[in-house]
């Protein structure tokens, strides 16, 4: 019980993931003309949006996960009793 309540919050990891995430989004919006032009070329360039989606989901997914944990929104501590 005590161990549960004083579990360390992943503040550091959230900040690092958040900074990377902001940097990715800033790059995407600041360089949008170049990115649109390149990504719309089709063919082998199709891999670019796919890779982008994976990279964003890793960093932003990590950030959002830690974000809710830091706010104290976590999964139920114990599975519901099934009668």
């Amino acid at each position, binding site marked *: 019980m005590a161990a549960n309540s004083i579990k360390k919050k992943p503040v550091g990891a959230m900040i690092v993931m958040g900074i990377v995430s902001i940097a990715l989004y800033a790059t995407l919006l600041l360089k949008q003309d170049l990115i649109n032009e390149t*990504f719309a*070329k*089709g063919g082998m360039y199709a891999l670019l949006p796919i890779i982008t989606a994976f990279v964003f989901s890793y960093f*932003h997914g990590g950030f*959002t996960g830690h974000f*809710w944990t830091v706010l104290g929104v976590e999964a139920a501590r114990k599975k*519901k009793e099934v009668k």
Partner: protein
Amino acid sequence: MHDIVAGFINLDAITILYLFGVGFVGGLVSGFIGSGGAFVLTPGMMSLGVPGLMAVASNMCHKFPKALVGALKRFKYGQVDVKLGLILGVSAEAGVLYGAGIQEKIKATYGDAGSNLYVSVAFVLILATVGGFVLYDAWKTYKSGNANSEEKAGKLAKWVQSINIPGTMVHFKALNARVSILFTIPLGFATGMMAATIAVGGFVGVPSMIYVLGAPSLMASATELVIAFVMGLGGSLKYAMHGMVDIRLAMIILAGSLFGIQLGAIGTTYVKPFMIKVVMGLIMVIVLFSRGLMVPVYLSQLGLIVTLGDTSVKLLKNASFAIMIFALMLGAFIVLRAMWQGKQAEKRAYASGALEHGEV
């Protein structure tokens, strides 16, 4: 590709916030019931001036990374059957290709209005049948007072599990039984066809896992995220090869939806399993009215009924979109409310436990 490049809209702060917000709500619902949000996102993007195909492509490109994050989160809670998800996902991919082919043929023969009519009629018929049944089942569970009981496979699922076709049997964790893949293939295929037709494969995928295969609601909705990942990845690649993905739109929606999907996934650990059916059934039934309102518009465009005036068309379109937003918001509200109540109940349980043990 110049025509496609010309389809890229200008992004301002309001557009970004709008996409982020709709992404968040869509993600919240997806994290909980395994799918949803796409039916609002695609028309939502089109209302901003994004060409139809680009809206579908960009939606798909946000869906697969979102589904991946959601599936990983729910895997941690022991709710995902990866094997079932992958097997259904592969056959769903085939269904997507077939469904897209049908769409193209209808569009080539009957034009945009014909294609839209086909989508709307499919929406109404499938959502009325499946959504109505899911909601009825949830209501029955609620009334029976067995909401806390472990879900049992229904008659159909028991029959499916009892059929032994040598050489095709696979054991699935979610079902705790062996089922022939000759049953899973058509279900996956139908899920893919739905995804290609009405953008939400889960409206067929999740109920079929529950009622035909016998998976518990929580496992079915979590496993649907694996199917969505497989389908979304394949679909995104296909569209990206034709340069149709607007990665800015996809990633902005993803920004909101990853906040939402984490929350929706957490929510599943607080609720009674039948709540998955409540949220899914309600959204399906409400969305069916939204699409139903558009049927006269397309019938009129095809000249099958009296031509509707511009004002009537606009009114019906706006009402249809408003109902879709309402469906999603209601789903999100129920998820958040159920989560809040679950959290409060947990706090009370721990507080009383701590008191009994003299820790407070």
